[in-house]
């Protein structure tokens, strides 16, 4: 089953395409990371999957073919927008009360015990909590809805390293215990390597790369050797990125793999997730920056303060 499936999906704001001809299938049970520069279309994709934004073109379904925004889909998806969206004037206890009454399914005791484990005082106003605690409160609300799919829009950006680790530990534990599938967007490429097992790279509203992280890392490698030989080799392998100096060249190739013979005089190195993502965002030839600059306003301002997707 796929938790998010899109076919030729597109979203147009005025004349600018925030997302275009986007076909993707995110498998169940994985943590899928959406990465790409600001304005690449990550939030647009998430908002359409949740049902907050209506596509201009193409189709999107969730959790094995459910229509986005349908009551059944809303019950099974929890969405946490950017910047730890909690009502700052409400106490933690009032947040719990409110969220319970806004949702058809809500596990109050699980939420209360999780907050107790984290040492978050129920009487305190959420606005007085640390950034990490606010994020944990929002995450606790989202998980208490017992979702099958958890969608997190840049949950880590405002958190310090310890809070990031605690936050991700909570997400990973929910995956282990309840089998929740997770889709999250993040700029913290180095940290994603440990947590993501499915990768989606977006650039300029288009899909650049998608697949299981382990497969992607195994298929790609960097070949280092004499620059004079680089063109011949770039033709032989399919090069994603070529970096060349006077004498030496590095080729990031997509059909390497450990079994493929390395040409004499060349060295092969494994490639990391961060290097791989950056190569796809700045492909061969260099200078071909994704034309996302004009689309950075594609984030829906109204969606930011929503806690989770509330039914109706």
């Amino acid at each position, binding site marked *: 089953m796929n938790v998010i499936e899109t076919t030729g999906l597109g979203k147009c704001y005025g004349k600018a395409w925030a997302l275009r001809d986007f076909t993707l299938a995110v498998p169940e049970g994985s943590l899928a990371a959406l990465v790409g520069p600001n304005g690449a279309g990550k939030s647009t994709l998430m908002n359409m999957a949740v049902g907050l934004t209506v596509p201009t073109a193409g189709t999107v379904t969730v959790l094995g073919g459910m229509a986005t925004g349908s009551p059944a889909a809303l019950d099974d998806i929890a969405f946490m927008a950017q910047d730890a969206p909690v009502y700052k004037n409400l106490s933690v206890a009032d947040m719990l009360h409110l969220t319970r009454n806004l949702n058809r399914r809500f596990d109050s005791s699980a939420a209360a015990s999780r907050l107790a484990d984290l040492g978050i005082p129920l009487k305190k106003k959420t606005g007085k909590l640390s950034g990490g605690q606010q994020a944990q409160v929002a995450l606790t609300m989202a998980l208490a809805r017992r979702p099958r799919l958890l969608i997190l829009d840049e949950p880590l950006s405002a958190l310090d390293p310890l809070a990031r680790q605690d936050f991700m530990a909570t997400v990973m534990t929910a*995956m282990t*215990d309840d089998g929740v599938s997770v889709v999250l967007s993040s700029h913290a490429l180095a940290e994603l390597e440990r947590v993501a097992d499915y990768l989606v790279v977006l650039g300029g509203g288009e899909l650049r790369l998608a697949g299981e992280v*382990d497969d992607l890392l195994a298929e790609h490698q960097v070949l280092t050797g004499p620059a004079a030989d680089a063109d011949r080799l770039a033709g032989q392998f399919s090069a994603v990125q070529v970096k060349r100096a006077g004498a030496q060249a590095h080729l990031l190739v997509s059909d390497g793999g450990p079994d493929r013979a390395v040409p004499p005089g060349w060295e092969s190195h494994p490639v990391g997730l961060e290097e791989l993502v950056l190569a796809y965002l700045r492909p061969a030839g260099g200078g071909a920056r994704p034309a996302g600059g004009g689309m950075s306003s594609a984030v829906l301002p109204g969606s930011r303060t929503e806690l989770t997707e509330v039914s109706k």
Partner: protein
Amino acid sequence: MTIDKGDSPIEFRLDPSSGVPTYLQLVQQVEHALRLGYLKPGDQLPKVRDVVAALTINPNTVLKAYKELEIKGLAAGRPGQGTFVQATLSQITLPELGGLRRSMLGWLTEANETGLDEDGIVALFTSVLRDFFKGRQGARGQGGTGRGPVGGNETEGVA
């Protein structure tokens, strides 16, 4: 946050700069622990939930590592309990290991006195090691020495 270490004799750690995929690091650490005798048949591997919480990694990564160990015949899952060590990788006894260690120390001292520094020794050792096993593989006409699954009884001479 305190971490319940469970009943396993080992604990995993990750080296983000190694370039080795995370699941493979876990597999290698179990194999390493088996070679050095930290793990014996019957021992429990760390519970998936504990590894996930301790290292903040994806549970599928841990499951993939344990599956790999099962395929290699080194571990087996028991439903509802966890994953347990089934076979051993230690190919020689502890006294034998001690003897080899001493003779290697002698060689290292000699190499160092001759003027090789640590990097030089590593480079030389790696290169000789590779040639040695390449030569043996060719002579025997069979591939994959020492990499396949090692059952309890089969022992390949190492020295």
